[in-house]
């Protein structure tokens, strides 16, 4: 568990950026994208997109797969589990608070 926890911090860090979040949103559909495809329709340059992809890659959120001469980027759902756990935690706190509220107003 301790080892697993250490790997979460870079995932949170990688996702704490609007551009990277939108890249993840695009990639999490499951289909691999090339850098040119990801740059299309974006205001950012190819270099900037590449830089963001490298950050996501180092956190393990995306992987690059070489196909012929170009790299394609693929989403890896594993590291996102950490965030799901955090939201689950906050969510559980609300479940408890609301059930206390229920007993409070229904008594």
């Amino acid at each position, binding site marked *: 568990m301790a080892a697993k*926890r250490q790997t*979460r*911090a870079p*995932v*949170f*860090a*990688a*996702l*704490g950026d609007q551009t990277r*979040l939108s890249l*993840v*949103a695009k990639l*999490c559909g499951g289909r691999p994208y090339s850098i040119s495809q990801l740059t299309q329709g974006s205001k950012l340059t190819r270099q900037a997109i590449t830089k963001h992809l490298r950050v996501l890659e180092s956190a393990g959120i995306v992987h690059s797969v070489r196909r012929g001469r170009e790299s394609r980027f693929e989403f890896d759902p594993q590291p*996102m589990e*950490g*965030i*799901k*756990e*955090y*939201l689950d*935690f*906050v*969510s*559980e*706190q*609300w*479940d*408890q*608070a*609301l*059930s*206390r*509220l*229920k*007993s*409070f*107003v*229904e008594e």
Partner: protein
Amino acid sequence: MNDRIEKRIELKASVSRVWRALTDYREFGEWFRVKLDDPFVPGQVSRGQITYPGYEHLKWEAVVQKMEPERLFSFTWHPYSVDPKTDYSKETPTLVEFTLEKTASGILLVLTESGFDRIPSDRRAEAFRRNEGGWTEQLKNLEKHVAPTS
């Protein structure tokens, strides 16, 4: 990615009863388990001390946003600002909204908390890490709370 929490709960009580439980600062404190210093006023900071067993060292701080009688109560806060030494005031808070709707048998309360994507990355991880131990403790408290009466 999911950036919000939504909960729905049916309450068998009158709308005025539920509204009071949500917006009277003493009643809110009873079920939320926080001792608040002052009544809720839209636009103002609400401060207090958590009374939840195991979390009593934590402060409560939120900014009341809207109070539309018997319909909507909302505030912004920093969820699980668990490190008393860290200043969370510069971070973007999440928005908590309680909306009330009358149903045939009572009140439907919808709670949403949104804005998690704007919480600084390392803080999210930290909040989670710090609470993990406390959470186990809380479950034990809950067990103790429900067990003896049965």
